[in-house]
């Protein structure tokens, strides 16, 4: 597959993932299932942009890792904050 075709397909995938997120947003009863999906969608979208749009996949290892970590940490925080809100509230109370 040519590079242009790969980029075109990845753009379509990003669009599809966004529309899926919007559909999830309209669900009346959000729960752990939808939170996990949202976190996963964010991780995948971030990874695509970092690896393919910023072209870090084929260039710089340290920068790539740094940028990828961002999109592991934020989705993980989404889950942790959803699952343990009272613990985190306790830790962050002055």
């Amino acid at each position, binding site marked *: 597959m040519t*590079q*242009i075709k790969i*980029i075109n397909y990845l*753009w379509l995938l*990003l*669009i599809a993932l*966004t*529309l899926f*997120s*919007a559909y*999830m*947003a*309209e669900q009346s009863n*959000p729960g752990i299932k939808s*939170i996990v999906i*949202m976190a996963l*969608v*964010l991780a995948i*979208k*971030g990874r695509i*942009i*970092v690896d*393919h*749009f*910023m*072209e*870090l996949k084929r*260039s*710089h*290892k*340290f*920068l790539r890792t*740094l*940028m990828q970590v*961002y999109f592991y940490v*934020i989705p993980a*925080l*989404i889950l942790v*904050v*959803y699952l343990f*809100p*009272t613990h*985190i*509230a306790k830790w*962050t*109370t002055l």
Partner: protein
Amino acid sequence: MTVIARQAFHFLPKAREIPGSIAIWAAILAEMTEFAIMFIVYFVARVHNPELFYDGPTRLSTSAGTANTLIMLTSSFFVVRAVMAMRENELKQCSQWLWGAVFCGVLYLVIKYFEYQWNTAQGLNTETNIFYGVYYYVTFNHFLHVGWGSAAIVWVIYRVNTGIYTKDDHEGLINIALYWHMIDLAWITIFPLLYVIR
């Protein structure tokens, strides 16, 4: 860079391995850190005000948030295609893809403006509660980034059209492309946090 300076920064790779310049990466990492601090503020505010953060997204326009996400992703795609066109020495196509990205940037700003108007009509503002305080702080900050990012792309278009960039030397184009992707990355994080997750 002197030999001594190069030795001191031996952990950094050779410049050619980095897409764009080291300066733009310093800016990108600084901006990503700034947004990370805002996200941490969001998470802390959220755990202390669960009800406000549960209800908050329901009063925002999911359509406006979704439209702007689609627009940002598309603008990033246009920027990638512009870089590809430059590598093929297709300067006219490069310029056209970049104009597409600028159009998306302006469209984003217009939608955001109407979204803010719509919020105001509903009685939502920075003082309504902490959720909307965080929402306005984060989204207006991002709004400014899209504004000056779009202006920077127009500057790059001028440089493409005047032949300053060539197939083999177009670091300025790569730099703005990377910066624009950073703006996109910030938005794809903001969208689920403020519009979707409850």
